[in-house]
């Protein structure tokens, strides 16, 4: 028989206070939250928390903060439903509930000594930001580092200051789907930047996060350049409820995304991503 008390306590959120609210762009906000003392486990890049807005509901949101600064919990949230909309309206001093961290992390150690390729699309940059923080502070540990970021238009570039003259400028490239004439950067889909001319895919590990269709196309573009499926990692997004592998809400074929994901190798999930019913 299961230990119901343990299970219940794992699902009780800790109260946490919002310290800072940063509007990234239209309906996308980054919240910095004080880490409650009861959340003893430090997060790893790629993991997520369950965020609870009192009286509204709870959703899963990936960590997007600095893994070396664990005193604050950072989440970037886009308003797409009632809970996320309530979250982005929270102000400094407001309270929310947090439990976590949950899920599998990005395999950063697996990429050490190799070429690291990070491909992000839209808000998919948020779960990869902890990776970029960590890797930026230990560049010598990797043979090379490349970040390719695609988004809808110049006004929806997440963490823009990190690119323009910021710490990601030296290894990051941005492309937008369309732009007005005042945009000086690349225009085109993210896969346009996945090219043998600019990427060293030999002995490479790739981390991809973004809309599922973008991840599929990006992974296939890397495979076309000779990468193996098991060296490409994606972050899955499914609706989660319990986050402790009990309810089955996030079931994805034989996997529970809260337990076996969100980070999984493309080889593991490639065929499942093509099944519309999942």
């Amino acid at each position: 028989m299961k230990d119901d008390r343990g299970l219940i306590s794992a699902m009780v959120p800790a109260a946490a206070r919002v310290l800072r609210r940063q509007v990234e762009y239209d309906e996308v906000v980054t919240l910095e939250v004080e880490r409650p003392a009861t959340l003893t486990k430090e997060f790893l890049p790629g993991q997520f928390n369950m965020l609870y807005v009192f009286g509204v509901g709870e959703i899963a949101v990936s960590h997007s903060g600095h893994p070396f600064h664990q005193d604050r919990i950072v989440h970037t949230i886009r308003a797409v439903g009632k809970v996320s909309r309530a979250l982005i309206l929270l102000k400094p001093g407001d309270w929310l509930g947090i439990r976590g961290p949950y899920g599998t992390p990005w395999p950063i150690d697996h990429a050490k000594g190799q070429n690291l390729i990070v491909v992000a699309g839209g808000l998919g940059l948020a779960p990869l930001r902890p990776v970029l923080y960590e890797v930026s502070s230990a560049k010598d540990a990797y043979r090379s580092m490349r970040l390719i970021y695609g988004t809808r238009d110049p006004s929806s570039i997440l963490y823009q200051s990190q690119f323009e003259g910021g710490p990601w400028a030296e290894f990051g490239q941005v492309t937008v789907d369309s732009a007005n004439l005042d945009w000086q950067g690349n225009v085109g889909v993210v896969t346009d930047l996945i090219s043998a001319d600019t990427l060293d895919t030999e002995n490479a590990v790739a981390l991809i996060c973004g809309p599922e269709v973008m991840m599929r196309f990006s992974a296939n573009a890397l495979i076309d350049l000779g990468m193996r499926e098991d060296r490409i990692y994606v972050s899955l997004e499914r609706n989660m409820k319990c986050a402790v592998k009990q309810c089955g809400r996030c079931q994805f074929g034989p996997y529970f995304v809260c337990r076996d994901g969100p980070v999984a190798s493309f080889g593991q999930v490639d065929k499942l991503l093509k099944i519309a019913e999942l």
Partner: protein
Amino acid sequence: MRTLTDLIVEQGLLKELDPSKIETISGCGKNAVFEAGAYIQKEGDPADHFYLVRAGKASLETFIPGRGNVIFKTLSEGDLVGVSWLVPPYRSSFDARALEECRAIEFDANCLRQHCEADHDLGYALLMKFVPVILDRMRSARLQILDVYGPDGDG
């Protein structure tokens, strides 16, 4: 001094073609320079030329009322500007503009079409170089239409 043939070979697109075919193609080409802001081609114009970008950056654009000209693709070294010259009605579908000084090899489309008509091996070889570019742009266009970065989900 590098010949036009050398410059063509330096660009990835046509370099694997048989040298005699590259020689024929280069006979229809010449160097061109576009200042920043200059149009390389305009929507609706006869597709009399196409270009292989050697240096600089160009854009493919179209005018949208209320938004002005919107860029949907930027092109740089090694990229092709213009595929409408391949098939009738030989009319450019979009504006192409130099975003910065742009050096390119300009090809006379009429000249090349005549060579392709006379030598179908050349025509086939060229098509095999152009079709992947067209396919790639079609794939990109479909992803752009899907607007995959738009808000999604219900949480």
